[in-house]
């Protein structure tokens, strides 16, 4: 299956791209995609603990299964302030 990946903010700068397309094995989940991307871009690895994910514009957990054509956004911590 093929998924569409969106990078934002600090992650976008680390990979120097705002989007990408990735071929994954059927049955792959969000966490599998993240691990694949970290192998390609080791600069992503330190963000592992703080990154969130959205699949088709809804927050998703790492174990959520992906389907062909999904839009997966990698979401670094949002803007904060107090």
């Amino acid at each position, binding site marked *: 299956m093929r998924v569409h990946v969106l990078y934002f903010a600090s992650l976008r*700068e680390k990979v120097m791209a705002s989007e990408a397309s990735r071929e994954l094995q059927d049955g792959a989940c969000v966490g599998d995609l993240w691990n694949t991307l970290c192998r390609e871009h080791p600069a992503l690895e330190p963000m592992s603990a703080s990154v969130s994910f959205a699949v088709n514009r809804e927050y998703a957990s790492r174990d959520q299964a992906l389907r062909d054509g999904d839009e997966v956004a990698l979401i670094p911590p949002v803007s904060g302030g107090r």
Partner: protein
Amino acid sequence: MFEIHREPIDVAKVVAAVAHPAAGAVTTFLGTTRDNNEGRQVTLLEYEAYPEMAIAEMRRIGDTARQRWPIQEIAIAHRVGIVPIGEASVVIAVSSAHRAAAFEACRFAIDRLKEVVPIWKKEHFDGGEVWIGSQVGDVFPGGETEPRK
């Protein structure tokens, strides 16, 4: 009204969006660019959004606020791109019959927005820039998270 703009936010338009004949109160919140942060001289803030999801999450905040408080209307506008010192990056307006609900719902909306809406803030300061929330530990000049050797 839930919107993301590249231009300065028209505050009067956000307030007008919550006008309601049964409202006896309208509260507003403006988040503005401050010229300092954690000892750094801030020169400007730059915001980036995942617009489709950000608007969906703002709408969800509005729905939750309506369930929790007896409010009439709620509107949220967020600016993206460069926001100079003193200008608003976010404007929230809430109307209700009596003021307590409008104050509480407005406070809830900005707090929740900062937690869940996919909008990111890059602080530009004298000597560097940093994505707020993404830094690990302290920020040093140049935006590095380690002191310069």
